[in-house]
């Protein structure tokens, strides 16, 4: 599936995400800057644990505020087809040339607080009710773009597998090593879909084939691509970016 495998060499630009990741270790590891010195005067600069803990506590408070502001019936703005962004920007925790093909014999596994744990094939998912959307994808970095997706509303799917809808979290595990999780209220918002199509065509690998989450009420990193497992749970599952310090709720 990958058409980019015969690129000759690796440039710095291509491995920048990896280089960036090596630099981010905790909030305050690289804090000897003007900003940090100015703001932390009076704090102990040798051990940042107190400041880190304070920031993390405030982020958890922010999550509660965001959950309170969230209204399950409030819809993200939708756009006409003419507003769709071309070309659509690729984004992942790795560069586009590292996109992996769909694993052989792919199925979607279901686990946790559900009554029906049978795995789902692509054709079984395609037989469920489908819903399309043209919405704005907003990245945590600040940029945004308008795209078109369609697929199975997650609420329809969760009811179909007999999920405990009073559970707190829905966790998504991906075949590319990525993972994320969302709150149940956001999972049941009608625009949250398990997308099978992008721009009217089945998902290509770089857009999350064969199945991705599309959730326009959260920042882009929550719309996990290349899904392979969904778990309904009450235990905080975290996620790839969340574990490194991105605000978990990440609502927009």
């Amino acid at each position, binding site marked *: 599936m990958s058409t980019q495998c015969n690129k000759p060499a690796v440039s710095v630009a291509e491995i920048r995400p990896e280089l*960036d990741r090596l*630099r*981010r270790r*905790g*909030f*305050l*590891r*690289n*804090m000897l*800057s*003007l*900003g*940090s010195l*100015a*703001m932390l005067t009076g704090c102990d600069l040798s051990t940042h644990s107190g400041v880190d803990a*304070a*920031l*993390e506590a*405030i*982020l958890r408070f*922010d999550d509660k505020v*965001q959950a309170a*502001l*969230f*209204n399950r019936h*409030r*819809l*993200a*703005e939708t756009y006409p087809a003419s507003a769709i962004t071309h070309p659509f920007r690729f984004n992942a925790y790795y560069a586009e040339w590292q996109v992996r093909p769909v694993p052989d014999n792919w199925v979607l596994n279901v686990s946790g607080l559900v009554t029906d744990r049978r795995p789902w094939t692509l054709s079984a998912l395609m037989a469920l009710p489908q819903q399309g959307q043209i919405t*704005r994808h*907003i*990245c*945590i*970095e*600040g*940029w*945004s773009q308008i795209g078109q997706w369609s697929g199975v509303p997650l609420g329809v799917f969760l009811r179909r597998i007999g999920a405990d809808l009073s559970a707190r979290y829905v966790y998504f595990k991906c075949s590319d090593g990525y993972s994320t999780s969302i709150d149940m209220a956001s999972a049941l918002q009608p625009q949250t879909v398990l997308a099978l199509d992008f721009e009217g065509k089945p998902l290509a690998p770089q857009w999350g084939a064969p199945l991705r989450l599309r959730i*326009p*009420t959260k920042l882009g990193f929550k719309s996990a691509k290349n899904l392979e497992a969904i778990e309904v749970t009450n235990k905080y599952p975290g996620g790839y*970016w969340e574990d*490194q*310090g*991105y*605000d978990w709720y990440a*609502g*927009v």
Partner: protein
Amino acid sequence: MDQRKARPAHPAPIRIMHWMGVYAMGCMIFSGWEIYNASPNLPFMFPAWTGLGGWLGGALAWHLSAMWLLFADGIAYLIYGFASGHFRRDLKPPRPSEVAHDLDAALCFRLKHRMGHYNAVQRVLYAGVIAAIILQVMTGLAIWKPVQFGWLTGLFGGYPIARGIHLTTMFGIVAFVLVHVTLVAIHPRTLKSMIVTVPTETEETP
């Protein structure tokens, strides 16, 4: 008259709120620069050493924490400003002719500074930066919650434009800070009046 003479140039609540605001705004600006640098949409970046947070996640943690301090400080200041008569007395909108006169005097370094009294140029600048901070909080809410506060984001012309206004207003606030700090450097006794109690200077002409 005695009562008026006893009034400090800056009452204690103003001084406390001023320095809390300095800290909060400093956190917001420096972490904001780090957030901008994660995906610059204009052909410039802020020097990496000026950023607060070390990386995007850290910068956002600072930005989304300091916002509460800025918000609380700002609300307290507005309530105090209206309730105490500070706005009515000190930030009365000047007539254009007053502004022209005082601006001309200021640019020729002839403008007198009397402690505890704001000239027309100061009133315009202080009212302007208060308005800019209010706009900054509103555009900040618009880009933090473009779905939940969709009406507000729509008011600013949508998410990308609201983000542009948020960046532009930051430059306005930074420009104010540069002018403000320069003027404090020219009149260092004003710095003292924002730290300890210094009496208001009486009017030269009644």
